[in-house]
């Protein structure tokens, strides 16, 4: 990546973080940036962070072997690093959702679904364009669009887990009540 691209990516990340912060405030019922969790949810999240940490650890060790073995990957190095981060996020999200921590106490689920939809659509554009023009890969390697692909995979994983968990949860609640 050249300097201009690095500056572009860094600016994009900063803008993305600001937008994410605004969206969180909008999506929370009490208009606070911080999502509130109860004691069980916090305990589950702590465990989720632990599993995510070990996942990223294993992934990074695997990447060391990939680099040492000079294995040619069809993905740029920076995208491989980002992939590790996203895999960690997926582990955290899927674990927490499956353990019943899908919404914080002050979250508005409907607003979050809208945000999910917007994020999915926004991440489709940088993939569809280059895919149509055949410029998804450069020198046989996929670069920046890989970040969008990983975010899409993460959002879809979260959504699928949410839907499945909701169905399981609804059935068990009907039996319990």
């Amino acid at each position, binding site marked *: 990546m050249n300097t201009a691209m690095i500056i572009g990516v860094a600016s994009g990340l900063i803008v993305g973080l600001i937008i994410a912060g605004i969206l969180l405030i909008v999506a929370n019922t009490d208009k606070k940036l911080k999502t509130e969790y*109860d*004691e*069980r*949810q916090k305990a589950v999240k702590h465990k989720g962070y632990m599993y995510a940490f070990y996942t990223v650890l294993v992934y990074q060790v695997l990447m060391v072997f990939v680099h040492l073995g000079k294995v040619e990957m069809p993905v740029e190095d920076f995208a491989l690093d980002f992939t590790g981060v996203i895999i960690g996020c997926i582990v955290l999200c899927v674990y927490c959702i499956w353990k*019943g*921590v899908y*919404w914080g*106490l002050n979250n508005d689920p409907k607003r979050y679904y809208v945000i999910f939809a917007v994020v999915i659509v926004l991440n489709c554009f940088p993939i569809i364009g280059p895919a149509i023009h055949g410029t998804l890969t450069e020198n046989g390697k996929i670069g920046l669009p890989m970040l969008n692909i990983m975010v899409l995979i993460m959002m879809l994983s979260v959504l699928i887990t949410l839907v499945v968990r909701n169905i399981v*949860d609804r059935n*068990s*609640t009907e039996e*319990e*009540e």
Partner: protein
Amino acid sequence: MKNLKLKSARAALDLSQEELAKKCGVSRQTMSAIEKGDYNPTINLCISICKVLGKTLDDLFWEEE
């Protein structure tokens, strides 16, 4: 082990898990987990549940031998 005392005390007040959870400041899933015996609440949450249901800790959380 399922907490049937909690479930019956809640039912006696005609409260749903969701309503009781909201009054105690926790999620419905947490309340469900407590009733199912999947989660051991802290003493603070036990007290909070007792206050909402008008019961004592012994009434709801003491397991008879």
